C-alpha cells in the first residue's frame, strides 16, 4: 500500500468488470479499484472475490503494468492483537432492502429505485454524471417523481422494523428539492408520507421552504403500483385525506428506505456480549447515551439508533470523551518525542532555489516532457539546482531531497508534482529535516491540474507545466521564513450553565483531569430537569439528577458558582479572563476554554385559556403531578393533550423536537395510573423519531386516541359552566368532534434565552429563533467558529436528555482536543498589519469572521489595527478589503501573487 501512487494504470488494464456497489450497482467498475474519487488514502485495492488472478490464477495484468511494484497477490488477512482500555463501536447501519416487498415491485420495474440509488443518480460523480434521467432504456428526463416514505420503517407488518428511521423525511425533501434544481421547476415532485418528521435544527424551515417550491406532500401510505402498458411509467393508487381513491402516473418512484442494524453489527454485539434494543441497535441509557451495557465498550452513530449526521458527529465526540474518561490516567504514556532539528537562518540571503520535477511514474512523464520542463527551469532566475525524480514522495527521494538542500545550501524549494492539498505537508517535513523553514516551499501542481487533465495534448501540457513551474519559482523567490506563534493554553475550563448539559460536560472534563468551573445564574443545579418526571426509556429523572448533582458537588476538580452571572470576558482561546459576579461581588476567572450550556425554557402559553383554569396545565406541570404522585389522577375521566403549542407557527417556525414523545410518554403514564381514562392527543405530525416510535405504538395499543389537525384548523377550547370543552375536526370521519376534558396538557414550545450579552462576550452568532449557531450544522455541532468556545444542550436546539448528555460529553471532548495540547502552534500563513500604513478605518475589524483584528488601545500606534495571529485563519478577507494596503498576508502576499502574474506570459 505504501508503494501505490494511485496512477490508475492497473484499473485501466484490468479486464474484469464488476457491478459498482458505491454507485448503487448502477454502473460497473473494475476488480481492482478505488471505492470513490475522494477516498482516503487514495490507494487501489483488489476485490478478491472477482479478481481473475486470485480466483482462477489467470491474468496478472495489474502487476505487469504497475510502475511501482505495489501489487502483491499473496497478501492475506492478518490477525492483529491489540491491548486497549476502551472500545468504541461505530459500525453504522444497513440500508433496508426493499426486495422483500412485492407491493413496490422494486426488482421488477426499472423506474422504482431506492433513495440511495436516487442519491447516486443526482450526484455529479455518479453513474449519470448528475443528469437526472429515468432508468428505462431511453433514459429520458422524468416529468413526475414520487417518493414513498417509511419503506422498512414504522412497519411491524411486512418487516420487523418498528422504529422510525429518523432521517428519511428530510432526505426525501432534500432529494425532491435537488431534483427540481436539476430538471427545472416543471418537474412534479410528490412525497407520500405518514407523518412529516423534521424535528432537527433548521429542518422545519427547510420543509416549509420545500412546500413553497411546489413539492407536494400527500399524507397517504401506498399499497398498489401498476405498470402503465407500453411504457416504463407507473400508476399509483392511493387514498386521499378526504377518503377518496385517486390514481396518478409517475415516471419514477423513489423508495425512502429506512435504516436498520446490520447483521454484522448484531453478530459483533453477541460476540462482545452487549445488550441490544428491540430493533437490534446497541442498548444505552439516557444518562449514559454512548455506553453499552458492558463497561469499557462505547457506541456512537447509527448503531446506537437511527440518526442524522449532526447527532452522529455529536455521538462520535461523546464516545471519544467516554472512552477517554475511563482511561484518563494512561494519557500520553505511549507518545514519542520527535527529534528537533535546528533551523538554519536564511533571512537576507539571495534566493537559491531548488526545483524538483516529478515524473510520478508515468502519471506526469506520460504526458508532460519532464526533461524539457527541468531544462527550462534551469534557465530561470535564482534557480541553483534542478533535477527530475521518478517518485518525489517516496521515502528515499525525500531523504535525497533533504541531502541536496543541505549540500547545495538551497534556501527555497519548488517541487513540481501533485497537489499541495495532499502533499504540501509531506514536503514541508522534508524541508524541516534539512533545517529549512517549512514555509520556504511551493508545490507546482503539474499532475492533478495538468498532466491528468490534458492527456491528449502533451505539447500543450508541457507548455502549461513550464508556466506553472515558472509562476511557482517567481512566487517562492519572494517567500520569507515564517514563524508560528506559540501560545500556552490555560488548563481550566469554564462551563456556563448548571443544567444536565453543563453538569455532564463538567464531569467529563473533570474525569479527564481538568479543573472546571460551573457558572449557574440560579440558586440550584439541575436546570429544567428538576421539573421532569421520566425519560422516554422510563428512567426516573429525579433519581438520576440527584446522583448527578451530588457527584458534581463532591468532585474536587469542579467548582460550582451559584447565583452567578458572567459580566465581562477578555482574551481569546487558551487565555480567557472572565469576570463572575455573585451578588454584588466580582471575581476574575482565568480559563483556556469556555462551554456554553445555557439551556432553554418552556413557553408560557396564552393559548387554550392557560392560566384560567387549574385543569389546563403544561407538560412540565403534568410531570410535577406525577412526581408528587397526585392522587387526583385516579379520578379523572378524560385527558386531552394538545401538541405544538407555540411551536411550528409563524412566530416560532421551528419544531421543539421533544414534545411529541413527552406527551405520548405522559399519556401512557396516565393510562398506567388510571386505565379507564379516555385520552386524546391532538397533533399535527407525531414526531416520535427513532425507537421512540415504539412508545407511539404502545400508546395506541393502550387505547390513546390520536387526532390530527393542521395549523389553519387548530382545536378550539372553551370553558362552559365548569366544563372544559375542546372542539376539533376528526381527520378520519371528517366531522367536527367535541371532547370534554378533566385535564388538558399543553405541549409548549421550547424557547432559547437569547442572551445577547454572553453572545457578544465571545462573539457567538445566534439564528433567527435565538439558538446559538454552531461552527458547522453537520460536522461541527458542538463548537463555535470562535476558537476555544464550545456548545452543548438546549442552547444549541431543543433536545431530550440522552441527546443533551451526548452533546455535553461531545463539547468536553472537543474542548480537550485544545486543553490536551497545552500549547497551540498557529499557522505561519497569517495576516499582519503594517501600522505605518494603517488608516484606522476599521474595515478589517468588521469583516473578519474570526474576530482576529482589533484596535491597538495604547501606545504610539493607538487606534490602529493589529491582528492576533492565534485567531487568524489566513483567509485573506481583511487583506483584500484593506483600503490602505496596510495588511500583509504571509505566504500569499500581494507581491507574491503579483510575481505569479508577472511571469504569466514571459517569453519562453
Amino acid at each position, binding site marked *: 500500500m505504501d508503494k501505490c501512487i494511485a496512477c490508475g494504470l492497473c484499473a485501466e488494464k484490468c479486464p474484469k468488470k464488476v457491478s459498482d456497489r458505491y454507485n448503487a450497482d448502477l454502473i460497473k467498475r473494475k476488480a481492482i479499484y478505488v471505492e470513490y*474519487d*475522494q477516498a482516503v488514502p487514495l490507494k487501489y485495492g483488489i476485490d478478491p472475490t472477482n479478481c481473475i488472478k486470485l480466483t482462477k490464477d489467470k491474468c496478472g495484468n495489474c502487476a505487469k503494468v504497475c510502475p511501482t511494484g505495489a501489487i502483491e497477490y499473496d497478501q492475506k488477512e492478518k490477525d492483529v492483537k491489540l491491548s486497549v482500555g476502551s472500545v468504541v463501536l461505530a459500525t453504522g447501519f444497513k440500508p433496508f432492502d426493499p426486495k422483500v416487498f412485492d407491493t413496490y415491485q422494486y426488482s421488477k420495474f426499472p423506474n422504482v429505485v431506492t433513495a440511495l440509488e436516487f442519491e447516486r443518480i443526482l450526484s*455529479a*460523480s455518479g453513474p449519470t*454524471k*448528475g443528469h437526472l434521467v429515468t432508468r428505462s432504456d431511453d433514459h429520458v428526463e422524468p416529468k413526475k417523481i414520487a417518493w414513498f416514505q417509511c419503506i422498512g420503517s414504522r412497519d411491524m407488518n411486512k418487516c420487523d422494523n418498528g422504529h422510525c428511521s429518523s432521517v428519511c423525511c428530510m432526505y426525501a425533501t432534500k432529494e425532491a428539492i435537488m431534483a427540481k434544481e436539476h430538471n427545472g421547476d416543471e418537474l412534479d415532485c410528490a412525497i407520500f408520507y405518514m407523518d412529516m418528521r423534521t424535528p432537527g435544527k433548521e429542518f422545519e424551515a427547510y420543509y416549509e421552504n420545500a412546500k413553497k417550491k411546489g413539492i407536494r406532500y400527500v399524507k397517504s401510505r401506498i399499497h398498489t403500483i401498476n405498470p402503465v402498458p407500453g411504457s416504463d411509467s407507473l400508476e399509483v393508487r392511493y387514498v386521499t385525506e378526504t377518503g377518496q381513491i385517486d390514481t396518478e402516473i409517475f415516471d419514477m418512484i423513489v423508495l425512502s428506505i429506512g435504516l436498520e442494524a446490520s447483521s454484522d453489527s448484531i453478530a459483533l454485539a453477541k460476540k462482545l456480549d452487549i445488550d441490544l434494543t428491540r430493533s437490534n441497535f446497541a442498548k444505552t441509557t439516557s444518562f449514559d447515551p454512548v455506553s453499552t451495557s458492558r463497561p469499557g465498550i462505547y457506541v456512537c452513530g447509527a448503531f446506537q439508533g437511527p440518526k442524522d449526521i449532526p447527532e452522529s458527529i455529536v455521538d462520535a465526540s461523546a464516545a471519544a470523551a467516554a472512552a477517554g474518561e475511563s482511561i484518563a490516567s494512561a494519557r500520553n504514556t505511549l507518545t514519542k518525542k520527535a527529534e528537533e532539528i535546528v533551523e538554519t537562518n536564511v533571512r537576507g540571503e539571495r534566493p537559491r532555489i531548488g526545483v524538483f520535477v516529478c515524473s510520478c511514474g508515468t502519471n506526469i512523464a506520460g504526458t508532460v516532457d519532464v526533461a524539457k520542463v527541468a531544462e527550462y527551469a534551469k534557465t530561470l532566475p535564482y534557480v541553483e539546482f534542478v533535477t527530475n525524480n521518478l517518485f518525489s514522495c517516496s521515502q528515499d527521494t525525500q531523504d535525497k531531497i533533504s541531502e541536496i538542500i543541505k549540500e547545495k545550501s538551497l534556501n527555497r524549494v519548488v517541487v513540481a508534482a501533485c497537489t499541495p492539498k495532499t502533499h504540501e505537508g509531506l514536503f514541508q517535513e522534508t524541508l524541516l529535516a534539512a533545517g529549512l523553514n517549512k514555509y520556504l516551499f511551493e508545490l507546482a501542481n503539474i499532475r492533478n491540474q495538468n498532466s491528468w*487533465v490534458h492527456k491528449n495534448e502533451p505539447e500543450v501540457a508541457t507548455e502549461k507545466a513550464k508556466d506553472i513551474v515558472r509562476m511557482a519559482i517567481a512566487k517562492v523567490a519572494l517567500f520569507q521564513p515564517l514563524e508560528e506563534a506559540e501560545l500556552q493554553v490555560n488548563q481550566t475550563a469554564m462551563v456556563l450553565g448548571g443544567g444536565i448539559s453543563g453538569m455532564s460536560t463538567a464531569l467529563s472534563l473533570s474525569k479527564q483531569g481538568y479543573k472546571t468551573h460551573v457558572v449557574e445564574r440560579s440558586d440550584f443545579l439541575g436546570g429544567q430537569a428538576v421539573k421532569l418526571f421520566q425519560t422516554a426509556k422510563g428512567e426516573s429523572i429525579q433519581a438520576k439528577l440527584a446522583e448527578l448533582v451530588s457527584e458534581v458537588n463532591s468532585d474536587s476538580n469542579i467548582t460550582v458558582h451559584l447565583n452567578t452571572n458572567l459580566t465581562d470576558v477578555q482574551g481569546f482561546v487558551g487565555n480567557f479572563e472572565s469576570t463572575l459576579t455573585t451578588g454584588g461581588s466580582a471575581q476574575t476567572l482565568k480559563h483556556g476554554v469556555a462551554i456554553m450550556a445555557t439551556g432553554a425554557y418552556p413557553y408560557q402559553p396564552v393559548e387554550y385559556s392557560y392560566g384560567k383554569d387549574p385543569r389546563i396545565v403544561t407538560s412540565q406541570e403534568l410531570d410535577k403531578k406525577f412526581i408528587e404522585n397526585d392522587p387526583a389522577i385516579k379520578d379523572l375521566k378524560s385527558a386531552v393533550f394538545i401538541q405544538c403549542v407555540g411551536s411550528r407557527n409563524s412566530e416560532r417556525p421551528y419544531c421543539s423536537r421533544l414534545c411529541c414523545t413527552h406527551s405520548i410518554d405522559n399519556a401512557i403514564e396516565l393510562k398506567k395510573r388510571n386505565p379507564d381514562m379516555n385520552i386524546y392527543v391532538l397533533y399535527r405530525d407525531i414526531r416520535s423519531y427513532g425507537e421512540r416510535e415504539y412508545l407511539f405504538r404502545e400508546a395506541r395499543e393502550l387505547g390513546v386516541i390520536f387526532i390530527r389537525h393542521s395549523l389553519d384548523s387548530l382545536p378550539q377550547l372553551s370553558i362552559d359552566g365548569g366544563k372544559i370543552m375542546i372542539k376539533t375536526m376528526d381527520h378520519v370521519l371528517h366531522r367536527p368532534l367535541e371532547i370534554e376534558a378533566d385535564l388538558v396538557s399543553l405541549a409548549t414550545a421550547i424557547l432559547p434565552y437569547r442572551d445577547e450579552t454572553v453572545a457578544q462576550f465571545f462573539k457567538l452568532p445566534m439564528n433567527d429563533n435565538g439558538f446559538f449557531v454552531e461552527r458547522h450544522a453537520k460536522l461541527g455541532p458542538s463548537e463555535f467558529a470562535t476558537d476555544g468556545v464550545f456548545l452543548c444542550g438546549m442552547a444549541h436546539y431543543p433536545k431530550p436528555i440522552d441527546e443533551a448528555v451526548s452533546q455535553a460529553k461531545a463539547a468536553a471532548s472537543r474542548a480537550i482536543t485544545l486543553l490536551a495540547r497545552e500549547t497551540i502552534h498557529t499557522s505561519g500563513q497569517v495576516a499582519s498589519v503594517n501600522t505605518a500604513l494603517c488608516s484606522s478605518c476599521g474595515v478589517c475589524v468588521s469583516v473578519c469572521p474570526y474576530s482576529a483584528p482589533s484596535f491597538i488601545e495604547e501606545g504610539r500606534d493607538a487606534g490602529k489595527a493589529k491582528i492576533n495571529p492565534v485567531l487568524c485563519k489566513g483567509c485573506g478577507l481583511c487583506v483584500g478589503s484593506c483600503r490602505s494596503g496596510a495588511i500583509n498576508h504571509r505566504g500569499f502576499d500581494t507581491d507574491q501573487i503579483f510575481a505569479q502574474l508577472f511571469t504569466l506570459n514571459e517569453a519562453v
Partner: protein
Amino acid sequence: MKNLMEHMGVEPGRLQFSWISSAEATKFVDVVKQVTEKVKELGPNEKFIKKTVKVA
C-alpha cells in the same frame, strides 16, 4: 468589481465568477469549458496590456 471593469472599458465577460464545492469535480470541468468558450468568443484582450514594446 464588475462595475469597475465596465467603467474602465473592459468587457464584463473577461471577469467570471463561480462557486464550486471541493467535491464538485464535474461542475469544475463544466465551468472551465464554459469560461474558455466565452472568452474565445470575446477574442483576445486588447486593453490594459503592458505598453512596453516587444523587441522582435
